[in-house]
């Protein structure tokens, strides 16, 4: 008997779509009205919020800071995560599973706890700063508060576990026999990485970078707690405008700009990767 299994997919699809689309629709709609103060919204459809955002250097700078810190955090996650993922993927002992389990567990730890961990480690009297000061490498303590470096560290800390898991699954798909073959033919270890592992993992790495980047673009907690009211990213600005100024329209506008920025950057990245593939600059 032929069963229409796909019918079972309709309810979750409808619920999922409604929940996502309805919320997006509501804030997109609100963004086209004027803020009248104290949460009140005008009746007339206007685009002044968008004009204000796109012509005001203050908002454009915040967009740039958000993109920059997210990109740096994604890149740092890759740089720190790739060797760890490679090591675990190529391990033959049972340690690989233990390490992997450790990483999975670390991703369950709430971001607030992770951030407070960073605050303790990087406090002026903390282990890191005291060691650096004693070694004479710093002349004054480094702080994770109130600067973009701190926010990037916080974002990277938030995404590192997730990034390692993604990279692990990518590296596992690359047969280790290819590395052996390259080495037998005289390639150095560095050359094996550069010419074999990296090109083969590039599509997966791109996907991982985009996922981590997207997570960072929308991350509020790390930026709010470590930014210390000095580093403004779009999610921090949305919270300030919606919760404190109670300007729902402007808050919705910033949220819409954030959403479209993420979509545009993702589409552009995929387009660029395809162009590189087409030009045979990237192996697949």
């Amino acid at each position, binding site marked *: 008997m032929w069963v229409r299994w796909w019918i079972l997919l309709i309810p979750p699809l409808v619920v999922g779509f409604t929940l996502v689309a309805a919320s997006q629709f509501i804030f997109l709609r609100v963004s086209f009205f004027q803020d009248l*103060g*104290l*949460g009140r919204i005008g009746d007339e459809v206007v685009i002044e919020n968008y004009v204000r955002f796109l012509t005001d250097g*203050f908002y454009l*700078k*915040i967009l740039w800071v958000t993109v920059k810190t997210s990109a740096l955090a994604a890149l740092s996650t890759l740089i720190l995560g790739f060797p760890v993922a490679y090591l675990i993927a190529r391990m033959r002992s049972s340690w690989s599973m233990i390490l992997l389990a450790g990483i999975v567990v670390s991703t369950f730890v709430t971001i607030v706890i992770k951030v407070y961990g960073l*605050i*303790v480690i990087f*406090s*002026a*009297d*903390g282990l890191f700063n005291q060691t650096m000061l004693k070694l004479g490498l710093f002349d*004054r*303590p480094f*702080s994770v*508060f*109130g600067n973009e470096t701190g926010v990037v560290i916080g974002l990277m800390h938030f995404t590192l576990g997730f990034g390692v898991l993604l990279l692990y699954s990518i590296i596992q798909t690359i047969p280790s026999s290819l590395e052996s073959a390259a080495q037998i033919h005289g390639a150095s270890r560095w050359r094996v990485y550069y010419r074999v592992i990296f090109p083969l993992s590039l599509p997966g790495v791109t996907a991982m970078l985009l996922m981590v980047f997207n997570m960072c673009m929308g991350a509020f907690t790390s930026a*709010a707690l470590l930014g*210390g*009211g*000095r580093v*403004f990213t779009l999610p921090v*600005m949305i919270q*300030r405008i*919606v*919760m*404190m*100024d*109670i*300007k729902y329209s402007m808050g919705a506008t910033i949220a819409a700009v954030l959403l479209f920025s993420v979509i545009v950057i993702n589409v552009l990245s995929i387009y660029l990767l395809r162009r590189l593939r087409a030009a045979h600059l990237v192996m697949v």
Partner: protein
Amino acid sequence: MLKTLKTTVVSLTITTLVLFSSSVVAGKFDDVTLRVATWGGLWKGNIEENIVPKFEAEGGKVEFITGSPAANFAKIIAARGEAPFDVVEILAAQVKDYHELDVLHELDLQLIPNTKFLASNRYNESVVGSWETQEVICYHKDKFAEEGIPVPTTYRDLVHPKISSRLLFPDINSGGGLPGLAGVAFAEGGDETNIQPGLKLVTEMNVLKFWARGGESMAQFESGDIIAAVVHAGWCLRSKTRAGQNVASVHPRINDELVGVASEGWFGVMKNSKNVEAAQWYINEFISADYQLKMATQTGLVPVNQSVFEEMAKDPIVAEMLVLDPEKVSNQLRIDYSKVIISDWTDQWNRAIAAQ
């Protein structure tokens, strides 16, 4: 027959006694659940310890909706005036917004008799004063002495290379944000309509971070991240008594007439409340001499109930941290929020800080 009669009489007597006794012990607020919008932590703990048992003895129950006054105001707006609480803590800066939204219930001051202990400008028929704070410069005495940093007497004294990046200042969105910014603005020659001089000074200070909750100052004095903080005196007191830090407070000189900055808290009862009488009972308890004294000595806030000033001054740490002399209190800067456009202040703040 006689047995049946006896049983009936006994049953009736017991029933009568039970009904009578239950009416005797019935509380004033039986089955009333009073919803209070206030802060969490020590603030809520004190209320739970001192006011809630008295309310429960009257048969009622208290539910807390914890959050900052700004967050609670946002809830009122989101609920289109139908607030999910009966009584709410309001900051001085918010009073005019509450009036504009017309969400406050008119108070029956006869039911809040403790208002007689409040200054006449601290209560009216829509709001009743709950506390005051004194915004101070809290500094670490040992660190300042070790590093030879002069004790600050003005906000400008915080522009110092050895204090740079080791200072906390209130974020504009925090409870201390508006009085903090007003303090520096007035000290630098500005006023409610011109905060630019204050913003310039804040950027010159090069603060480590702008705090969202005053409690952050306690943690960061402990971790050695900061050696000074612009906070209300209560946080300085708690850094000393709870975090064991050797800190002291300075009430900064604003100009030739004013020394220090005062900020006010208020209570309001929501128009949609079905427990107005209970809400007024709660306010009355909160401003009672007994509770105000406990609250003030534990948290370092200034009571609105003036009958406890003398008793408070007997506590040496409180006396060291706070100004309790009424004449000096009257010489503290108080912001006229009717002249303040808060969204304008916030916008100017965000731009100045982002440009740093």
